[in-house]
């Protein structure tokens, strides 16, 4: 029970922690405050508990695949909002007095969406098994360790991102957020395949080289949506979202840079 709760917590916390550290370094880099997380995290927790409470009802919708559809929907939303936020941060970097409020709202919205599914899973797991007295202490210890691990990796990542110069950090984070967005689209496709809304298949199998359930596999899954045996439709959507958002973000970055250089 101890090891299992560590694994569950790490897996679920890691994804949100990485996203949160990207968004937090973006707000700081563009001269905004970082205390928006004080809104985002409690709202995310609240959302996760509501999500968990409604899961039974949601699961029955769409002929029994409601869970998949709602999960996919939240992932597709992140896929769309993340590049939008990135463009907003790039804009603010070059136009210093651009409004910060929409960016705060986007950062909070994305964090809440990222916490919904994973948070609901943790909540369901803990609330079900904390009731068993002999498991309680190992559940608490395991969760603390798991949460701590996920949080530490997120913090390390945050300070790594903060170590770049402002402009380079924007470029690095553009690439990272394109990866996260693409990973989300890959997961959304996985859900829609499971619901039989999209066709299944196997584009390749890299489980021999990098197992999904290993440490490196889990990290890569959280950051880039790694899957050892993706379906063709997952590969295509990953490529489309990754290159699409990269193109938009980098295109906007260099256009603004050119303009700012010309302005000086």
């Amino acid at each position, binding site marked *: 029970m101890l090891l*299992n709760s560590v694994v*569950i917590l790490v897996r679920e916390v890691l994804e949100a922690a990485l996203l949160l550290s990207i968004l937090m370094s973006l707000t700081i880099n563009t001269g905004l405050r970082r205390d928006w997380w004080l809104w985002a995290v409690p709202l995310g927790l609240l959302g996760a508990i509501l999500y968990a409470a409604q*899961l*039974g009802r949601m*699961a029955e919708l769409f*002929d*029994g*695949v409601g*869970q*998949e559809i709602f999960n996919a929907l939240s992932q597709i939303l992140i896929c769309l909002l993340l590049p939008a936020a990135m463009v907003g941060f790039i804009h603010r970097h070059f136009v210093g007095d651009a409004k910060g409020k929409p960016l705060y709202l986007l950062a909070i919205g994305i964090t809440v969406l990222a916490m919904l599914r994973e948070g*609901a*899973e943790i909540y*369901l*797991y803990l609330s*079900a*098994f904390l009731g068993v007295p002999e498991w309680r202490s190992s559940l608490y210890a395991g969760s603390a360790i798991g949460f701590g691990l996920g949080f530490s990796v997120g913090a390390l990542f945050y300070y790594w991102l903060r170590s770049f110069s402002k402009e380079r950090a924007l470029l690095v984070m553009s690439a990272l957020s394109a990866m996260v967005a693409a990973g989300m689209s890959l997961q959304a496709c*996985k859900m829609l*395949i*499971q*619901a*039989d809304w999209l066709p*299944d298949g*196997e584009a390749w199998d890299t*489980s021999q080289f990098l*197992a*999904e*359930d290993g440490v490196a596999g889990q990290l890569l899954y959280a950051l880039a949506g790694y*899957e*050892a*045996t*993706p*379906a063709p439709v997952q590969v295509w959507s990953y490529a489309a979202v990754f290159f699409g958002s990269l193109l938009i973000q980098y295109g906007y970055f260099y256009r603004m840079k050119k303009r700012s250089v010309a302005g000086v």
Partner: protein
Amino acid sequence: MRIAVLSNRVGRWSLGLVMMLVCSAVFAAKPVFELEIKNHLFEPSTLKIPANTKIKLMVYNRDRTPEEFESYELNREKVILGGQKAVIFIGPLEPGRYPYFGEFNPKTAQGEIVAE
């Protein structure tokens, strides 16, 4: 006159659409297989399904606690609340063995799907 033509056209299109949906629903009847979760165990722990066929897997969670059906080999994960059932579409699969487990009780809740 124009409206009549238009509504006629809309009617014809929607009739076609309805027929298409009905047909696809009829032809899409996939073989159904069932699994049960009892005392954090999957029953049966080995489930044989036809290879190269999409199937509809019904998982009944008879426990009071939730479970997450998870498989890296099948690329599937779904939370099933206590006392509820879940629909999971699987395949078409190449012949082979595909292990799955319950993420909340991975020590006991293990099984595999054999496609042949």
